[in-house]
């Protein structure tokens, strides 16, 4: 699903190591990160609910899922993060807490359906 745009950095060696960015591609890549994270947090919530995690375990599971997403995104970028994003921060931290509410919702939903009723 995640088609990363053309490299954000275009031919840095020509312009004396000055990084040049294509803003549109950057935004597109950031959007893809956001979508992937939201998607993963929803799926992760359902999985956590079905497996019946409670309390701290569930939140640890959320961080695990987010870490896996980060690794997946880095792999999608061919581990040459700097040609697609402006640093590791973006790929690791962006939208990290944004998916938490969605995660909690779907976690509760699946947990209630499977384990409570």
């Amino acid at each position, binding site marked *: 699903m995640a088609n990363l745009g053309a490299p954000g950095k275009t031919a840095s060696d*020509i*312009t*004396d190591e*000055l990084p040049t960015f294509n803003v549109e591609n950057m935004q597109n890549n950031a*959007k893809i990160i*956001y*979508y992937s994270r*939201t*998607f993963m*947090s*929803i799926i992760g919530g359902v999985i*956590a*609910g079905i497996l*019946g*995690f*409670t*309390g*701290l375990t*569930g*939140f640890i599971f959320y961080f695990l899922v987010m870490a896996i997403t980060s690794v997946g995104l880095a792999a999608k970028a061919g581990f040459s993060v700097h040609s697609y994003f402006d640093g590791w921060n973006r790929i690791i931290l962006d939208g990290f807490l*944004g*998916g938490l*509410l*969605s995660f*909690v*919702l*779907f*976690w*509760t*939903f699946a*947990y*209630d*359906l499977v384990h*409570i*009723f």
Partner: protein
Amino acid sequence: MAEDLVLDTAIRDWVLIPLSVVMVLIGILRYFVSKLMRSSNQAPDPKMVKEGQVIIRARNLRAAANYIPAKSFRARRVYFSNEENGLLYVPKGQAQNAQAQMFSDPNMAMDMMKKNLSMIIPQTLTFAWVNFFFSGFVAAKIPFPLTQRFRSMLQNGIDLSTVDVSYVSSRSWYFLNLFGLRGLFSLILGEENATDDTQRMMQMSGFGFDPTKSLGAEKDSLDIFQHEWALPKFEQRAEAVLKKLVS
């Protein structure tokens, strides 16, 4: 204290799932309704459009300034910001009052009201609906423990102090849906989804938006911009490439 409350499966079938489905459907409906309302009106004021385009051009110049020689940059800057007929220069006294402009254009206020209504009405209605039909019983259990402080908020309508706080009433399930579904909406409705409340707030604060003020701001930032030529070895490189081609 009872470890596990046994909840009736009818609650799941008639409260939990319907509530979520209704929330999702209302969100989608709201998206399309606000889209319909938005697209129906107005040709924008040509002067406003013109000023907006000028600002965009100035911003582009500022963003790409380092890729043109200093002389060219200076020439372009003068074109935008000189005090006589620069595009960004606004003579004193011509700046119109934003407040007055707002009142002279009832369409704008109307638009705002429509937007707000399309947000508030469904929420109020859903909340009233949930309160009316689904209050007074435990509807769900959240899978993580909470402190006693949350009791009054989450167990509204359940007057039992011994029930564990993680058992919540339908009202809290409603709120959980309200906030948690935002991510889902952005996935299924795409980018500009109308349920994004924070964006709505931004728009509201930018309501008394004054184009002359932004022209002035853009002029100032263009004036203080430091030009730094990004391609100093450009000519040597071109020379080398051409030499290689010729020889």
